[in-house]
């Protein structure tokens, strides 16, 4: 439809632009897209070449000599015990995501549909907490975990992620719940349904898109976290990000492990992203632009 508008009135320069511009825009956009693809493609190809190949020539030579590709790095990586950090990532990410969804939908429901004194001020506090940097909690929570004796454990990492995921989660869900037609809730309340039942049978199912958005956000945020794991997870409980970070010091000699490990760590987020990108974008829009 934009093209029709463009055709309405053009000066000579405009006509020239329209004739050549279409092609030019295409070329520029292809170049930009390539620019964004090349770094990740590089990581993938490097992870599929052995050390000798990576040390002697650029990864782009695989375009002319595809025979050099091998799964050697991946077999070595899996043999080196990387799988345990993969499971740690899963054990941290799944509970942290489910807990945030459960706790924030309850809180969001209260903020949206239960009338209590100080509700609006309290919600403003939640909004204020949206931007609090996690650095503020690193030292105090380390002390707290020492006291609770969960320093280094998976539970400590999970709880930290849940707490810092809550402000955004409550904000997102409360805003969604407010938009649910009031008549639906009133009808259920007329029937004498308990508040817990209304929450579980009316609101929760209606809110699936919002919960999906929140779920994918929280999942990616926790899966990709490095800082929290760096501080609170000990070596036995470390997720992939921390395991890979500890290899960074010898970047030059560890490129086989680092490239294959980094690529493995981003496969699941990428699959999720492509499968649920609609919800991802919705969550982004609801969280940032209103």
């Amino acid at each position, binding site marked *: 439809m934009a093209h029709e508008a463009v055709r309405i009135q053009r000066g000579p320069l405009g006509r020239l632009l329209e004739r050549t511009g279409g092609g030019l825009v295409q070329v520029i956009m292809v170049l930009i897209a390539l620019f964004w693809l090349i770094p990740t493609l590089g990581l993938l190809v490097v992870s599929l070449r052995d050390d000798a190949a990576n040390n002697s020539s650029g990864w782009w030579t695989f375009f002319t000599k595809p025979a050099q590709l091998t799964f050697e790095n991946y077999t070595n990586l899996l043999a080196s015990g990387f799988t345990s950090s993969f499971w740690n990532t899963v054990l941290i990410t799944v509970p942290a995501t489910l807990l945030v969804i459960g706790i924030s939908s309850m809180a969001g429901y209260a903020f949206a549909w239960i009338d209590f004194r100080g*509700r609006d001020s309290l919600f403003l506090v939640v909004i204020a907490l949206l931007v609090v*940097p996690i650095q503020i909690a690193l030292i105090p*929570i380390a002390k707290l975990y020492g006291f609770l004796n969960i320093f280094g454990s998976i539970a400590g990492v999970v709880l930290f992620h849940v707490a810092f995921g809550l402000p955004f989660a409550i904000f997102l869900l409360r805003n969604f719940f407010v938009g649910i037609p009031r008549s639906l809730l009133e009808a259920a309340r007329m029937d004498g349904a308990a508040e817990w039942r209304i929450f579980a049978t009316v609101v929760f199912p209606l809110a699936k898109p919002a919960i999906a958005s929140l779920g994918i956000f929280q999942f990616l945020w926790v899966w990709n976290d490095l800082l929290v794991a760096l501080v609170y997870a000990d070596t036995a409980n470390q997720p992939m990000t921390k395991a890979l*970070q500890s290899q960074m010091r010898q970047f030059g000699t560890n490129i086989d492990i680092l490239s294959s490990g*980094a690529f493995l760590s981003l496969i699941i*987020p990428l699959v999720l992203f492509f499968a649920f990108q609609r919800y991802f974008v919705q969550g*982004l829009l609801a969280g940032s632009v209103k």
Partner: protein
Amino acid sequence: MSSTAPAPGGTIAAGSADIVETAKAPRQLGPSPKMAIGFLAPALILLVAWVIYPIVYSIWRSLFGSNDSDFVGLSNYGAIFTDSSTLTTIRNNIIWVVVAPLVVTTLGLIFAVMTERIRWATAFKLILFMPMAVSLLAAGVVFRLVYEQDPDKGVANAIITTVHDAFASSAGFPGARPRENDQAPAALQGGAVVTKGATTLVPLVGINPQTLASAAQAGQPPADGGTVWLDVVRGGGGAVNQIDPQEKALAGLTVEALSGGKVVATATTADDGTYHFPGLTKGSYSVRLPADNFKAPFGGLTWLGPTLITPAIIGAYIWVWAGFAMVLISAGLAGIPRDALEAARIDGATEWQVFRRITVPLLSPVLLVVFVTMIINVLKVFDLVFIIAPGSVQPQANVIALEMWRVSFGGGGNQGLGSALAIFLLILVLPFMFFNIRRFRRDEG
């Protein structure tokens, strides 16, 4: 999405006066306020214990030294602004805040407008948006590879050297030099090779013959010129200062004929190392090979060195976030009434005027949100700096969030200073906290 929805008990508060009114309003059919406690309890406990209590504790802790019984008053905050390493982090954070949000927002706007003109917009958006799903650690590893110094490993330098070589030839032979003895017909003069007497033969050494394995054999000097060649036979043998059969030519070198210190003719050596000065009248000349011939080839930029490290990491950051900005701005663009744009075009406005005068002003709320989100994000930047900057360059690339971790957990051993840095970071984001609250109140009002 929520601004038009009715809320129980009247309108949602838009200010403190309304909050009181809401609380007093007659309650309709609905749950008792006490129910709220049950629904809110888990969230409130976690938020108080993990977020609010730490803010209070950090303020208190920041008044003590590395030992938490050493009261030092505000001197940790003083240290932030006097210590040279923390001053570097502040300087770097300022560079980040000035550059990154502006570039990300601008690129997002350009990409959003341009995607409206291609048919494969969805694919384009997915490609640019993809880095958002990837961990910053993985993005850091990706860019460590991109920025490798060796143009045969790092794609950034591979591209730069290819482009550079296309415009400036660097077919020289770094390291090539004449023999340093009296019999040698040429000698070094300020980096250039100049013949001593009336000779046209320029034998050079200093290059591994193996690297010239595919070069042509050196040819005999022509009448109107001479030969430049590598006066070394692979495996030994051969006569010094004479062209032997297995000796290789040095092709592509610039050769100048000098007379009385002036350049009177220039030539380039051919594949067999010979050069010709066809138009030159008989006389006494010396031959000079300018220093440019022996310079090391351009090896690209030292991305991960102390000077370029922050721009290099900002480049990686832009790669991660430009897609985010584009998607938000695209959504804003979709909400602009097409009539306004078309009316302006019918009135004869150029495409650029439409963009400047209509599109950008209508998009300004979205642009502001993207810009502010980026500033908040940039203030806390940690992973990319930590991963991309090699250990030796980290002091030059350091930022506040990284320094806070380093000082408290990464071997610094001073949680008093760490707490002060955390509070400093919190103070930096405070204006945006109020921005968010004000925006929310306006939207709900």
